[in-house]
């Protein structure tokens, strides 16, 4: 069971990570994009963190929807609609919840990735957010189905996410700005896949902190 406090904690931790890795993500984007991914994500999560205090008495679904709307209206670029849609969709599937079962968490991730696929019209292997997100979710589902706790499952998820990030170094980008580079995008890791790996890292840390 994940409580509302844990969800809020996860969002806060992820926001901190976006501040901490702002320059790193921007540098990755400088190499194959337009050098603003860290700036974009950090701008969005700064706005989220200003909003969080007003969301304490909301249900989890409304909290996630508010986070998504805030991202959509402050990030811009490609990552704004993608991350924003993911959070909003995750909220939609958790209608009225004040606590989340493991299945709820999985559903939220699946709705989120569905939102990104719908919005970005990409598939796995195009050097995008999906390349860390899809393997992470698969690993979480597998781990839970093997009877592990969500903390253990999120550890497996994060590990798969970083493997996905590594994988993005080996492929050509065919979506987003990096696609203009063609072959020249090989060798560089995808900024969006990287920021998504940090999301699973944040989720894992939030779960660990709550000691379950």
């Amino acid at each position, binding site marked *: 069971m994940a409580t509302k406090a844990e969800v809020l904690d996860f969002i806060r931790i992820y926001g901190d990570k976006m501040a901490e890795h702002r320059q790193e993500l921007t540098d990755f984007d400088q190499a194959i994009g*337009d*050098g*603003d991914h860290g*700036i*974009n994500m950090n701008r969005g999560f700064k706005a989220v963190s200003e909003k969080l205090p007003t969301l304490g008495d909301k249900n989890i679904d409304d909290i996630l929807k508010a986070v998504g709307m805030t991202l*959509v*209206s*402050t*990030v*811009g*670029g*490609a*990552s*704004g*609609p*993608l991350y924003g*849609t993911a959070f909003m969709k995750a909220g939609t599937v958790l209608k009225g919840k004040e606590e989340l079962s493991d299945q709820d968490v999985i559903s939220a991730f699946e709705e989120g990735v569905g939102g990104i696929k719908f*919005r*970005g019209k990409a598939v796995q292997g195009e050097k995008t957010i999906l390349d860390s997100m899809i393997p992470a979710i698969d690993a979480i589902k597998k781990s839970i189905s093997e009877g592990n706790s969500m903390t253990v499952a999120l550890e497996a998820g994060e590990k798969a996410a970083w493997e996905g990030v590594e994988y993005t170094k080996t492929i*050509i980008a*065919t*979506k*987003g*700005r990096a*696609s*203009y*580079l*063609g072959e*020249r995008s090989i060798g560089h890791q995808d900024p969006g896949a990287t920021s998504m790996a940090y999301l699973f890292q944040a989720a894992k840390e939030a779960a660990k902190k709550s000691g379950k």
Partner: protein
Amino acid sequence: MKKFINDVENVENEMLEGIVLAHPEYVTRLPGFDVLVRTDKKVGKVAIVSGGGSGHEPAHGGFVGKGMLDGAVPGAIFTSPTPDQVFEAIKAVDAGKGVLLVVKNYTGDIMNFEMAAELAEAEGIKVANVVTNDDVAVEDSLYTTGRRGVAGTILVHKIAGAKAETGASIEEVHATAEKVIANVRTMGVALKPCTVPAAGKPGFELSDEEMELGIGIHGEPGTERKPIQKADEIVNYLMDRILKDMKPVAGDEVAVMINGAGATPPMELYILNRRVQQILAEKGVKVFKTFVGDFMTSIDMAGASITLLKLDAELKELLLAEADTIAFKM
């Protein structure tokens, strides 16, 4: 970085204030939003909204007015505007006949405008959109996100805007805009990179002897980095790429746009134009109308692009139709 600015965080906002203070007869800012709309809202016509990151001035606010755009949504510099801003523009300009969104082909722009369209449609506003993709430097294949939208976008504004002004339906305006997009091709070159104020240093490096051919309007890499050549040779290269894609035949009529990237003086643009016109004359392609100037800039990049638009009778008539905006008058 040498720029007439105050604080890097305020560049977009202060620029918008400067535009509105300069041209209140043309544009009005929606209170609380980074949106410019026509001061004299025209009713009984399809409205047209465009936008994208700031840093391309006079695009897009400079083209708001009679015969072109009804609203412009400038995002942060080189960053697409967010859906809520675009949605606000759509609501403000809609006059009951629907709103056409003219979007340049970048993942971010497309997704943000698409979300805005969904919001507008949920409120019962009829929305259509077109995606401009005139940059022949980028291959349009299964393995890319397709060609980038660059300076040719301005001719979409001009012609779709003229069509809307006739009272045409949104389907008709949409079809005309698509016709322009199908027939417009651009390629650019940079001599010196641009500096995003917040970055404080140039987005890429070019030595004193180098140029970047096929550059994008955000300084995205092009097809080749080469030693700098004479103007005529540069034009030969760019025109070769454009003509290969466009395949005009003798007797075809075109409009020509020689667009400056921000720090290129008219002197040089006209020298480029000279060779463009020579090449077209050699091929028997008739030039119907030529535009030379800064239309779609990349902040302070020294560079230029060449745009050709193949014309038919409808496009010719609409191209010459009246336009009265800050940066484009006809």
